[in-house]
């Protein structure tokens, strides 16, 4: 524990240097802007800005991304509360109670509770991240290929279960992502796979054009297809920002419950911030002393979900730092960035580069504080971003994507891939396919292949030798249960209904 505190304070000292403070500030502002703009979520922003991070060191890049991720959660709530427009998916639930509060003239209170709740939840989840990562990383150092293979499989299967939409479509996307990851040289034998004689494909399909295409270009194509929303911009006065004592009292427990729930849900594969807000909203509705107020502007319905989505961000970083495996699409982009900087995430990263890890953690606290200080006074300014016309904003995003991709390898093929994957992403998203599993599988694919081949080598070709390791068996069991349990529950409910009617 003493060592953790020492590392943390060293990290804090580094994070407080002007360059890193600047990256945190830029990340927070960019995140808030993308959170405010409907359609462009943290994922899109991270994908678009990925190429910019190549000019920074890895610590700076991580600080920027953490700021974007947290900032988007803050920004998303602003438009949900004031205009009933969710800036990103995790803020959808805030619209229900937040906008009702605005209608009742309590917009300022909802915004303050949301910002303070997000700050508290963010701080709790970062503390959870510190403790859980250090603990898990120690255990993960003892993991072999069989365990890592089991974690990858478990992550992908749980992702299919939790992504939402059709399971078959999610499986197809995962398999397509894994298929993409097999293009290029085989890392063990040097054999070329699926390169079709194109020399540029020897090194594989770059993560950057795929991510930027699917999340950046596809997002632009989908956005320009929709009708432009024009709503009167609501102004919030300073004196309205202060909640009443009763509102503080009613928000206190929901914030803590939301923080806890959000952090736990953040550890699970899938779009954790979105799931966390829904779970928190339902639990608050059940726990509240005023359930009749839900749907008409209950403060608990803003405090809980807003805390939960911020806490989920911290939780999502745990499997990434401790195991090196991303469980959410945003974390897949973080892994991609780390790899572009020559770092492999995982337990060894914390062991070998503690200064990097603890600086990032400390900067998360700083970013959270910055967001609290910046967001409330600048609410009216951030809301005005919605007034930027779309015909002006969309070409800028396309331009950033194109130049960003070109700036990495100066490759025309990467630009063609960007356009191609942008169009593929647009078509697939219009057909109900979720792009997140594809990106995650593309990142997890090489890890899964390495661990599978190493595990088979070690076990002498015995599949049982991989499955029946204590940790891998537990993980496979959890995966199987996640599919079997809902079926059993459905059968049980059916039989109970039948018994009751008899």
């Amino acid at each position, binding site marked *: 524990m003493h060592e953790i505190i020492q590392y943390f304070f060293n990290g804090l000292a580094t994070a407080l240097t002007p360059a890193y403070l600047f990256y945190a500030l830029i990340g927070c502002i960019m995140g808030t802007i993308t959170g405010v703009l409907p359609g462009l979520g943290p994922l899109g922003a991270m994908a678009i800005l990925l190429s910019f991070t190549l000019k920074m060191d890895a610590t700076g890049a991580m600080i920027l991304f953490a700021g974007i991720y947290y900032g988007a959660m803050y920004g998303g709530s602003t438009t949900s509360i004031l205009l009933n427009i969710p800036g990103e998916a995790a803020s959808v639930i805030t619209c229900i109670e937040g906008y009702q509060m605005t209608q009742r003239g309590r917009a300022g209170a909802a915004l303050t509770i949301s910002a303070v709740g997000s700050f508290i939840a963010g701080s709790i989840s970062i503390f959870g991240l510190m403790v859980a990562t250090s603990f898990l990383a120690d255990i993960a150092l003892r993991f072999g290929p069989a365990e890592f293979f089991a974690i990858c499989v478990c992550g992908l299967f749980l992702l299919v279960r939790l992504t939402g939409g059709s399971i078959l479509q999610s499986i*197809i996307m995962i*398999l397509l992502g894994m298929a993409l990851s097999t293009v290029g040289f085989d890392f063990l034998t040097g054999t070329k796979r699926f390169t079709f004689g194109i020399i540029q494909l020897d090194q594989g399909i770059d993560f950057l054009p795929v991510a930027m295409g699917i999340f950046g270009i596809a997002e632009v194509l989908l956005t320009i297809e929709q009708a432009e929303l024009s709503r009167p911009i609501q102004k919030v006065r300073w004196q309205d920002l202060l909640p009443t004592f009763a509102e503080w009292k009613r928000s206190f427990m929901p914030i803590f419950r939301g923080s806890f729930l959000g952090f736990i849900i953040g550890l699970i594969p899938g779009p954790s911030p979105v799931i966390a807000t829904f779970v928190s909203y339902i639990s608050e509705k059940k726990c509240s002393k005023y359930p009749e107020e839900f749907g008409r502007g209950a403060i608990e319905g803003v405090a809980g979900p807003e805390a939960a989505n911020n806490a989920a961000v911290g939780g999502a970083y745990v499997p990434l730092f401790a195991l090196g495996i991303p469980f959410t699409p945003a974390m897949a982009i973080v892994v991609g960035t780390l790899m572009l900087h020559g770092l492999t995430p995982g337990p060894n990263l914390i062991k070998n580069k503690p200064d990097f890890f603890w600086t990032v953690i400390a900067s998360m606290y700083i970013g959270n504080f910055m967001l609290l200080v910046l967001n409330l006074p600048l609410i009216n300014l951030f809301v005005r971003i919605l007034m930027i016309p779309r015909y002006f904003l969309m070409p800028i995003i*396309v331009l950033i994507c194109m130049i960003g991709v070109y*700036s990495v390898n100066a490759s025309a*093929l990467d630009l063609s891939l960007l356009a191609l994957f942008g169009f593929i992403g647009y078509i697939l998203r219009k057909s109900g396919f979720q792009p997140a599993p594809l990106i995650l599988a593309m990142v997890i694919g090489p890890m899964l292949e390495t661990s599978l081949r190493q595990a088979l080598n070690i076990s002498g070709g015995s599949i049982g030798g991989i499955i029946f390791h204590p940790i891998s068996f537990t993980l496979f069991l959890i995966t199987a249960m996640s599919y079997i349990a809902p079926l059993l529950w459905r059968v049980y409910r059916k039989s109970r209904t039948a018994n009751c009617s008899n």
Partner: protein
Amino acid sequence: MRAKILKMLGDKNKRASSGLPKSKKGKKRKELLIGIALLAVSILYLMGSLQLKYGTLKNPGPGLLPIIIGFFLLFCTSLYFIKLYKGEIKNNIEENNSLNGQIKRQRFIMVYGSFACTLAFPFLLEFFKFIGATTIVTFFLLFVLRPQKIFINLGLAFIMAIISFWIFAILLGVAFPFGFLEELFFKWLW
């Protein structure tokens, strides 16, 4: 002419007999096309993976995982196609039928025009270098989104190209293809 009219009438009768309205038929056709494309990709991938050495379980080769992925992908995409064909999967291809023809056409131009601009950029970059290619692409992007103001769009596109050149090439040091304009602005902005 008569043959044309008779053919058109025949098509109309066929459409009426199929029991699906025109918009739904178009939607189903789009869904099936996506299903066929996915099936084609999975067949190609499996065929490619079968040419790789998959080794043994003890010494797995570079083809082991691709073959596993290929088989599962073919199975899943076939299942998806069958389900689509039978109408068991209700995809939400968003088709707003309440929009009139002109707005639909406008949106089509916006989406496919933007895609075409993105696709054309690498080729333009080779011939017109950075500032030229960026100006052309940005102008067309602005034009497909707001076709009314051509000269303002052209001015905006040129300004955006210069600003991005300044940020990326001069501040961030990205190596873009240089031509006459780039040399000129590099000297001027540096």
